[in-house]
């Protein structure tokens, strides 16, 4: 049975404003935010004092001033509200890994006169005991938010619908498992997350409480219920029945967490905050051991995992400190995972100490560590090919990092330097020299979702076209003395030095790729390049090209130096 906590922050926007005010806002001062709505200034959110003076969201600002001349008005900041709410959701992961933002309700939803107000949804299944029970968790959450200056109401129930209803309409903080129907029966119809139009039309037929709707939909005898439900759906749409079923937990309603849900997590809540490096190491290794056990049970290994740590002195809008590491192949050896995390541990700032630490596997994949892994050479032997050929074909495969010690080395390098810095340079089908190389992170091959079928012809650089071993990132202009129209240069001048060409070979004409460009994205280099390999008097070999052709009357083509041969 799932246990869902719904947190409602009815005055989130104004509380955010009030928190930033110095001196603090007196408790009975009205505060509203204003929003320009099609040229008309309206009230976007109100605080408790304003609400008491009958100011409601959606009314014109002029009306609000008429009701309460002393009202303080600030500009609404919807984006800031959303960002703050997301930070709050991150913070709330101290209670459970699965938290989601519950956006503000549209006007007309929720309790009358209170307006929308966003909230959070948290799946606390199996998490409450860490804080001593659901009641304690709830009180802890509300106490921390109250301290931060937020008015908060929260409830726990079996379903999102029931928890949502209790947080906004009910008085029961914790609905015991299986008690949703009973707890909902006395609540008004808007508690089912129905819009004002639907509520009004249901009210017209005399339905005022959720319980009445429930009795009608269920019926008493077997057949009657479904008939009534059909009638209900035909008349009021499927939403009414759906919301009812969701609230009662008969229809599963997914909670889409802010973060990928993971099956392998381990949390550690400590009484004495951890701050020493040794203590942190011990805690992390303990957590890794638990994650590894979970991975082993599932036959999986971790491709990436995340360490989160909450400081004891961190406020509600301070997200946990996070360390993420990736492994090149699924791994579940705690010692290896620790080696990945260890060099990063000094990035954590324990300050007064961490009270909660958690490790979650953000990407798990089937574990094949027990099997013999074919290396590139093994593949070559099987196919009867020389290793050089498989080397060229390995672009599609992953032979390189299949070797566990190599994979661990790549992980270690990537963990410290960044995975974008440990690369494999694979061929790409392009004649343009600077586009012929595709850099992929060395660890990103194994178990990635099926990309190109490996049976496809392997891309390789053509062996009959000599390429330099050093390629200037940006071709550099040179001045040349060259016979017109197609001859290689006799002399060229680059960076203030003149080189006399002893021997040259070429041209190799590279045309711009026709599929590049088009009207929307014009090709920056529409002209052909004629490449020459030239050797100067001392035997140094350069790669020069001429951009464009000679045209009568047109500007002469330009020459560039692009690379150096070995």
């Amino acid at each position, binding site marked *: 049975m799932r246990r869902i906590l719904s947190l409602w922050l009815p005055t989130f926007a104004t509380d955010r404003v009030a928190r930033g005010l110095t001196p603090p806002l007196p408790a009975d001062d009205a505060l509203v935010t204003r929003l320009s709505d099609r040229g008309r200034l309206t009230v976007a959110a109100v605080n408790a004092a304003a609400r008491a003076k009958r100011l409601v969201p959606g009314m014109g600002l002029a009306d609000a001033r008429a009701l309460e001349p002393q009202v303080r008005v600030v500009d609404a900041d919807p984006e800031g509200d959303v960002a703050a709410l997301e930070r709050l959701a991150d913070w709330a992961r101290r209670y459970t890994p699965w938290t989601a933002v519950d956006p503000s309700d549209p006007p007309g939803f929720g309790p009358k006169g209170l307006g929308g107000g966003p909230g959070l949804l948290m799946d606390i299944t199996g998490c409450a005991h860490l804080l001593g029970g659901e009641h304690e968790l709830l009180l802890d959450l509300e106490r921390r938010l109250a301290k931060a200056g937020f008015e908060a109401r929260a409830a726990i129930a079996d379903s999102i619908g029931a928890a949502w209803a209790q947080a906004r309409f009910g008085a029961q903080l914790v609905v015991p498992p299986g008690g949703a129907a009973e707890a909902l029966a006395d609540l008004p119809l808007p508690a089912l997350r129905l819009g004002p139009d639907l509520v009004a039309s249901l009210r017209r037929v005399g339905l005022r409480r959720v319980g009445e709707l429930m009795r009608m939909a269920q019926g008493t005898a077997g057949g009657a219920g479904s008939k009534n439900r059909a009638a209900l759906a035909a008349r009021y749409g499927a939403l009414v029945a759906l919301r009812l079923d969701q609230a009662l937990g008969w229809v599963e309603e997914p909670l889409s967490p802010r973060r990928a849900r993971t099956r392998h997590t381990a949390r550690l809540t400590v009484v004495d905050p951890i701050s020493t490096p040794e203590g942190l190491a011990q805690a992390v290794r303990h957590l890794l051991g638990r994650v590894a056990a979970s991975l082993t049970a599932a036959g999986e290994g971790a491709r990436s995992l995340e360490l989160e740590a909450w400081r004891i002195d961190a406020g509600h809008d301070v997200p946990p400190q996070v360390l993420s590491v990736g492994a090149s192949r699924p791994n579940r050896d705690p010692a290896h995972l620790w080696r990945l995390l260890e060099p990063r541990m000094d990035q954590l700032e324990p300050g007064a100490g961490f009270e909660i630490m958690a490790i979650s596997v953000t990407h798990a994949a089937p574990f094949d560590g027990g099997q013999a892994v074919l290396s*590139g050479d093994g593949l070559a032997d099987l196919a009867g090919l020389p290793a*050089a050929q498989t080397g060229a074909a390995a672009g599609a495969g992953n032979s390189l990092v299949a070797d566990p010690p190599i994979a661990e080395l790549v992980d270690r390098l990537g963990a410290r330097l960044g995975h974008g*810095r440990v690369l494999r340079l694979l061929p790409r089908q392009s004649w343009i*020299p600077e586009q*012929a190389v595709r850099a992929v992170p060395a660890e990103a091959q194994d178990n990635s979702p099926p990309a190109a079928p490996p049976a496809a012809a392997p891309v390789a650089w053509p062996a009959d076209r*000599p390429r330099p*071993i050093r390629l200037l990132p940006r071709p550099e202009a040179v001045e040349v003395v060259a016979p017109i129209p197609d001859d290689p240069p006799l002399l060229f001048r680059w960076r203030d030095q003149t080189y006399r060409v002893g021997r040259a070979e070429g041209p190799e004409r590279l045309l711009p790729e026709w599929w590049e460009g088009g009207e929307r994205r014009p090709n920056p280099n529409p002209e052909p390049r004629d490449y020459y390999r030239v050797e100067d008097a*001392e035997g140094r*070999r350069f790669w020069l090209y001429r951009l464009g052709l000679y045209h009568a009357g047109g500007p002469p083509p330009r020459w560039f130096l692009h690379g150096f041969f*070995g």
Partner: protein
Amino acid sequence: MPAIPPPISAVRPTACPSGACPRGTYPEEGQSEGALDRQRLLAVLREQVRAVEAPGTGRGVVPLGVPAVDAHLPAAGPGEGGAHGLPRAALHEVVAAGDLDAGAATAFTALLAVRLAEQVRGPILWMTRAPDLYAPGLDAQGVGPGRLVVVHAACEVDLLWAMEEALRCPRVGAVVGEAGGLDLTASRRLHLAAETGGVPGLLLRLNAGKGGAMKGLKGAGRGGGRGSGRGDTQATAAVTRWQVGTAPIYADDSAASAFTGPAWRVELLRCRGGRPGAWTLYEREGLRLEAAGQVAVPAPEMPPPASAVVPFTSTQFPSTGRAVG
């Protein structure tokens, strides 16, 4: 750890290694099996001297395949047939002769890396800070995309750390590091790591002290740009130090239209357990090396004087470049 023979004290507890001790301290002199013991002792001592002079040869040597060059390289241990070549588990250094010889030095390094990695057939890790390494060119030198891992280090410290880390992993074929500033201690660490992991390490020094390959080109003085490799590069703990430049090959090549493989002017500036030398090497089809001419340095224990290295008998330097077309 390399197979180091037992320390002297284990063989001859009373003798002084310097040989200054009186003869009487040698054990069992004149006995029938004494001659045998002495033979054994001499062999052990030779092995120890060799291990000191040519560190890294304990894991075998890799011949370059050019007899003229290989004769200058240290010999392998007695168990390996006495072949000469580059010690595998050791740090080597390749210095570009001039600013514009980055290509030649890179290609020569790639060639050495492929040779040294042949036994393990593991990946070749190439640590660099420069953005200009071009994989198709490396592919042509035998470092194909299937075995190349490039590590783009953000700073010198990261680069050295990554090199050391890779050198300790025995499954790695070879590690190439384009290190700029590098002191004796840092290179000693690298050599130690290479010995520990049994992985060949190659320091590629394109522009000693400047980091990138092409950075130093701006405003490079004319004067051929040669000779900088020997002077401004600090001493390192590398077992061999090569200086690589280019050699013009068209002068004696009648088929002037064909671009053959590269010609390199390769100098072995320093070689522990071997002798310095200088050669003009051609790279032929299949990455085979051929020596054109060789000037042996007369006294092997003396460092080569700068002037003794220059003459190349078989490649005449042209007075003027011959234009094409």
